[in-house]
């Protein structure tokens, strides 16, 4: 008797999707596609301003504006400055974009480090004494409410167009905010943290630096991340009003001539830089506070 062949199908194993695909939900992907498809359509439908630029520049307009960035390159490396009568080139535009992005980033990072470092150090020193903390908490709160961004003309008057003025302005804007957050963060650390450390023999300063400050860091983290975003806004404000280089200077120029395509291009670069810095800051702070819940 012949035994009939029994076909046993091989077990099928679902092919695992890559991690990046699992993270992106289908609807998110679709919304992005719709946005990309709608952009050029909106750009054409909404129309053109009396100055000849589109109200909403499309992708081709942004690409077309790229060459004009060559006008913001001071000259050198095989691309002479257009102010000397030389023609704008793509190489000059690349150098112009890199140069101005670098200048703005340097000002933002410098102001950020100075502002955050200075304000947290000051908050640590003041919070050492409860009386000092309570004495300065009201002036600090007032400083947070004052329209610091609107004080840029004052800094222009005090420091002129110097780089020091820009750095001090950015660090002042960010510092006045982070200082209050740091004071609150340190003030809200439960007293028993310090008491436990002291009862185990830690000196006051050791308990303060090894227990109180690390415990306050997760509370200060949100303020620092927000300060990273605000560093770009404050640098742009400073460059808008009194600098002859940087992305804010180009934005100010494009605003003056109503050149929406150049504004969109520079806006895109600023957004990419700001988002990247936000992402990096978030990752670094997550790593630093990885022990917290």
């Amino acid at each position, binding site marked *: 008797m012949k035994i009939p062949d029994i076909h046993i199908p091989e077990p099928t194993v679902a092919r695992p999707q890559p991690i990046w695909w699992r993270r992106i939900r289908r609807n998110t992907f679709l919304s992005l596609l719709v946005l990309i498809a709608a952009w050029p359509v909106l750009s054409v439908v909404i129309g053109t301003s009396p100055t000849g630029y589109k109200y909403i520049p499309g992708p081709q307009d942004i690409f077309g504006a790229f060459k004009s960035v060559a006008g913001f390159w001071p000259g050198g490396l095989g691309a002479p400055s257009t102010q000397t009568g030389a023609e704008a080139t793509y190489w000059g535009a690349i150098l112009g974009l890199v140069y101005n992005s670098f200048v703005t980033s340097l000002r933002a990072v410098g102001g950020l480090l100075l502002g955050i470092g200075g304000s947290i150090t000051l908050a640590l020193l003041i919070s050492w004494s409860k009386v000092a903390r309570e004495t300065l908490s009201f002036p600090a709160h007032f400083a947070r409410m004052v329209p610091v961004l609107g004080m840029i*003309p*004052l800094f222009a008057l005090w420091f002129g167009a110097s780089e020091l003025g820009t750095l001090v302005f950015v660090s002042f804007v960010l510092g006045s905010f982070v200082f209050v957050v740091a004071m609150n963060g340190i003030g809200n650390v439960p007293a028993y943290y310090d008491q436990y450390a002291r009862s185990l023999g830690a000196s006051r300063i050791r308990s303060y630096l090894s227990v109180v400050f690390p415990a306050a860091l997760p509370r200060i983290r949100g303020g620092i991340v927000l300060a990273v975003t605000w560093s770009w806004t404050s640098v742009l404000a400073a460059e*808008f009003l009194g600098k002859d280089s940087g992305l804010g200077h180009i934005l100010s120029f494009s605003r003056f001539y109503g050149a929406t395509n150049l504004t969109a291009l520079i806006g895109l670069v600023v957004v990419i830089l700001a988002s990247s810095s936000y992402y990096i800051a978030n990752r670094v702070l997550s790593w630093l506070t990885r022990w917290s819940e």
Partner: protein
Amino acid sequence: MTVEGRKTAWRPRGITIPGGLRRVGLAVLGVGVLVGVWSLVAAGAQSVRVPSPLRVLETIRANFLALEALAFAAFGSGGLAQNTVYTVSNTLIGVAIGATFGVVVGVLVGRIQFLRDVLEKPLLFLVTVPVLVLLPFLSMWFGVSRLAINGMVIFYAFVTVAFGTQQATINVSNYFQDYARSLGATQTQILGAVITPALVPEVIGFIRGSLAFGWGLQTVAEILGGQVGVGRIIRTFLHTARTADMIGAVIVLGIVALLIDAFVASVGKWITRWQE
């Protein structure tokens, strides 16, 4: 020493100052320290660079109702008071519009999975956008209108409140929704009686944050192109190198901002008096 005696904390004998009075006293002392340092710096610097606190007070009094410099240099009218009212009302309107839309969008995105899939990432992206990038576009789209000047405040308040409310809604939903549902609450009851009240403390925090930054954004927009407002005054003073007047305008707006923040905080405290 008895066991009870050990439990009793040692306290110094002397005058006890009530907590509220102590806080006010220390706040006054803090302002005094600040003014003292300022006076010292001003004494060693030129008046045009760092004017003394008294000089600044004098300019506030002189500019309060009428401002000759504004009429002469910028064909404007009104004094510090009138322009401050303009800036304050614009900022409040901007934050109110932005926050209202922000709460609605935040709750919807937090509650409805489809909207969360579509809008969560764009919202996160918008949070990282430096607001000042919008200013050239607002000027081109809306000219020198009130909306062009106010657009940054509306945008910032919307994004901040929407993002914060969305996160808070997700957190609140996780914790309280299951409890309420296990007690037999319907979806409408959960939204109205559980989630909305639980969101209020966090939403008020985000509104205060938007307000704190809103003053600066409004002033910068006015400096760069406003026809009225504190920013416009600051621009006029900059052109005539009147530092004391400039500082005076900033301080007046700061005091009003502080009072409004205290008012919003008190209202928030009253609304959330059920909290522990």
